[in-house]
């Protein structure tokens, strides 16, 4: 999913930068010297002062009760939400029926031929093979359910995203208003989106589709806007001089010029929709995600994997096909499409006549058992008592007592205003006073919501996991950047780890590391590593060869080259890696609530599970604030400027 590219630039001004940084810190110190005694005199407490919190649980419980009581009678529901929900149900059902009517042969043929038209023969074969593999794993019907849900969610997201993107691409004011919102939505953990939709729509497919849309539409909108704004001005002027109307210009010049961004947006939307479709099984999405979720309930890693693999396959195929579509169309034109459509219909009809609509029951491969045996072996031999290094359980224990506990205790011991100060300093050093203000306000909001302590608990887990991720990720990234063979070996592994639904990680992690915060952190590290490795490798490889060459000619050893040339020059990429690492780690640490991670993640799970939306929504909002704060603290200003284009 991390298709962001980093371009190294602006490293030549360390002196000036340092100078400005010192200035900022001095200013901040002066502000602190004035404000802190005031704040401390008023609300002298280590933790967030009680006087500054707002208790939202009463009103929220009231709202939730009101909704349940009025859902079948109030006009707002009957004439507005009811229709939305209806439309979702009808369209998902329509797609599902079409997929079932086409039968497994028809769907496979249609998908293969579509891939052939947009991406060539190799990917077409890959697509067909992936779909057949879903059937072989015994997951045909759930795959179709997920696909039906995805098709609807992606279509709605794309329409919504393009509309928003058009508005922002054509009007500066909308762009300025929309961009921070879209940027922010992209860094929020998926879990935080579930509760509000459940509140209104109840458990089920409509809620799942809508949560997916909210999660997946922002990248489409962002990239559409950027594509429209990034169009070459000279081309536009030329078109304008031909006397075209605004609409003609949009359709004949601006949109075609933005084609790359549009397809990249589509790609990201699909990937995000797929990952959300799995998480949404918690709120009744059905399909593959539900199979994963059900398998985890009986600690059946093998069955979870059997349902998880089709998701990975779908993700890899969709990613490659939409990616290839961005490169350019195949020759053949309309006739090719017509042949493809005719062939797909022919296969579907043939299969129908042959009576083979459903996937034949005997054509399935049971992978659950061997996988479970492997997992059992691993847990039996690695859990504890391994000579010299100790077992995984011991590591988890040490990680908890030596790193997580002191970190949490430290954060919670710090007076509340000093936490805000640290946040302000970090965000200001790396960004502008505006990002600093956002970060401080977001952090303060967690206190106002009355969840200061759990937020710091979550924060401590994020920090510990990010540290581990960065150490491992940057090391692996350096290795991959230095050896082509290693990178080639690594690439499919990274692909799989990045697209695997986060749920699948949780249970083997519990088997190895027990219950608690440590396994949550481990799952987060595993999930965030691929992105960090990838960005680091990319950043290091983009370092100007001339700079390296000159360093080499000066007789620098390879370690010296790395430390004094490559790493400093790749600084923007490394910062981006930190940012992505933080965002991804937060997403999984939250899901860690399912394996004893506690804190905010547990509150969200609790809210969903008990229908106690007050607890869940407050925790969800706090997660949003935490995500916002972490993003602002790690997002360098340079990148924002570039993104604005």
């Amino acid at each position, binding site marked *: 999913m991390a298709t962001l590219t980093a371009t190294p630039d602006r490293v030549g001004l360390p002196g000036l930068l340092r100078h400005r940084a010192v200035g900022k810190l001095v200013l901040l110190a002066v502000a602190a010297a004035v404000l802190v005694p005031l704040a401390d005199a008023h609300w002298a407490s280590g933790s967030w002062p009680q006087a500054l919190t707002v208790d939202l649980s009463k009103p929220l419980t009231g709202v939730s009760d009101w909704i349940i009581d009025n859902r079948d009678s109030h006009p707002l529901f009957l004439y507005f939400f009811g229709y939305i929900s209806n439309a979702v149900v009808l369209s998902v059902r329509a797609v599902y029926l079409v997929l*079932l009517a086409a039968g497994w042969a028809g769907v496979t043929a249609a998908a293969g031929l579509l891939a052939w038209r947009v991406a060539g023969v190799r990917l077409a074969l890959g697509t067909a093979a992936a779909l057949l593999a879903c059937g072989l794993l015994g997951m045909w019907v759930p795959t179709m*359910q997920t696909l039906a849900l995805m098709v609807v969610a992606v279509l709605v997201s794309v329409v919504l995203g393009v509309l928003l993107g058009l508005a922002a691409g054509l009007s500066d004011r909308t762009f300025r208003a929309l961009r921070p919102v879209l940027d922010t939505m992209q860094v929020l953990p998926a879990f935080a989106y579930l509760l509000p939709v459940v509140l209104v729509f109840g458990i*089920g497919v409509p809620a799942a589709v809508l949560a997916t849309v909210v999660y997946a539409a922002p990248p489409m909108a962002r990239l559409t806007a950027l594509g429209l704004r990034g169009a070459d001005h000279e081309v536009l002027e030329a078109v304008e001089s031909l006397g075209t109307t605004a609409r003609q210009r949009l359709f004949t010049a601006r949109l075609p010029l933005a084609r790359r961004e549009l397809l990249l947006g589509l790609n990201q939307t699909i990937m995000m929709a797929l990952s959300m479709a799995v998480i949404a099984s918690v709120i009744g999405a059905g399909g593959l995600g*539900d199979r994963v979720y059900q398998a985890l309930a009986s600690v059946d890693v093998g069955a979870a994997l059997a349902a998880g693999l089709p998701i990975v396959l779908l993700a890899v195929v969709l990613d490659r096909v939409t990616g290839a579509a961005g490169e350019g169309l195949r020759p053949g034109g309309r006739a090719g499409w017509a042949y493809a459509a005719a062939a797909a219909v022919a296969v579907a009809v043939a299969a129908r006549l042959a009576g083979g609509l459903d996937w034949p029951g005997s054509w399935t491969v049971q992978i659950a058992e061997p996988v479970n045996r492997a997992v059992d072996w691993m847990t039996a031999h690695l859990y504890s008592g391994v000579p010299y290094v100790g077992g995984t359980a011991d590591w988890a224990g040490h990680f908890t007592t030596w790193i997580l506990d002191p970190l949490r205790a430290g954060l919670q011991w710090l007076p509340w205003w000093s936490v805000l100060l640290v946040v302000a300093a970090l965000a200001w050093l790396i960004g502008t006073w505006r990002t600093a203000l956002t970060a401080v306000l977001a952090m303060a909001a967690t206190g106002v919501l009355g969840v200061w302590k759990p937020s710091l608990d979550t924060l401590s887990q994020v920090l510990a996991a990010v540290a581990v991720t960065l150490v491992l990720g940057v090391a692996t990234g350096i290795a991959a950047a230095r050896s082509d063979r290693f990178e080639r070996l690594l690439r499919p592994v990274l692909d799989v780890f990045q697209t695997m639904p986060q749920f699948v990680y949780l249970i083997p992690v519990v088997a190895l590391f027990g219950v608690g915060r440590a396994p949550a952190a481990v799952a987060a590290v595993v999930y965030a590593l691929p992105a960090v490795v990838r960005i680091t490798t990319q950043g290091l490889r983009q370092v100007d060869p001339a700079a390296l060459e000159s360093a080499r000619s000066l007789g620098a050893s390879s370690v010296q080259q790395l430390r004094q040339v490559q790493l400093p020059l790749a600084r923007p990429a490394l910062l981006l890696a930190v940012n992505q690492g933080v965002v991804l780690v937060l997403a999984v640490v939250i899901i860690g609530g399912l394996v004893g991670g506690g804190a905010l993640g547990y509150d969200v799970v609790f809210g969903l599970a008990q229908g106690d939306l007050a607890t869940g929504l407050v925790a969800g909002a706090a997660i949003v604030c935490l995500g916002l704060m972490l993003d602002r603290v790690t997002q360098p200003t340079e990148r924002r400027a570039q993104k604005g284009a």
Partner: protein
Amino acid sequence: MPRTRTKIITALAVLGLTTGCGAADMTKQASPFANAQGARTVTLSVQSWVGAQANVAVAQYLLQHKLGYRVDTVQVDEIPAWDALSQGRVDAILEDWGHPDQEKRYVEDKKTIARAGGLGVTGHIGWYVPTYLVRQHPDITDWKNLDKYANLFRTAESGGKGQLMDGSPSYVTNDKALVENLKLDYQVIFAGSEAAQITQIRQFAKEHKPFLTYWYAPQWLFKKVPMTEVRLPPYKEGCDADPAKVACAYPHTPLQKYLNADFDRSGGKAARFLKKFHWTTEDQNQVALMIADQKLTPEQAAKKWVDSHASTWKSWLS
């Protein structure tokens, strides 16, 4: 611009007319995956514990193979399942552990859910310690002695206190209040899901380590890890009325079945079958053990049970 606006208005009007401008009651919408291709479909709610999966597996097998239905299953947590049931997104809950608030709201006030009789299994929640630990410390099964042994149960997560391991946040639990009201030197740690809790229990058991856990019967895990219940202050009717002041044990609950009210009226054979579905703790454990421990698929497990218990299920179909 005005032209576009009129177009939009016309489009909206057409949309309004074609969809029919009536009310759309979303509490009456079934799952989009139900009744596909003319098959009669029943959607069953599966709760996350394996006993509930056993009920559903057998009901599903019989509905599919003896009554010709297509069965969808959805995993929903306990309280949201009530909501989904009232909206008709699922047709039946086969095992409910007692939710008086929901029962009052949906069964008595809104009448969108109908009772469907007992499951035949009686459930009991409690605190359990492994039996190998009881052999070493026979007096550990009284709550008054728990503090004495708190240091045995200490883990990295519970800090200086003993760890009382709870499972999924969705399960019925008073443990936090109990620990507080009984003034125990313990910390409740939520495993977050039953899967995580079972995995952890089995790891402890393999090494014969002491642990104290929230657990419930009937449960197949007792066959793998023998556990003994810790006696809490005895349960009296109404002693758990105020969730914050609970200081007594959990009751013995006869588990109940519930159907969506519309399904109850018009569900035909399937609804009749589900109302008659009634088996014993033994039966349920047998199927659950096959699923969770021998790793049979729920369908294989159900088939095995159905093949050898014809006399039991024949009466459900009549």
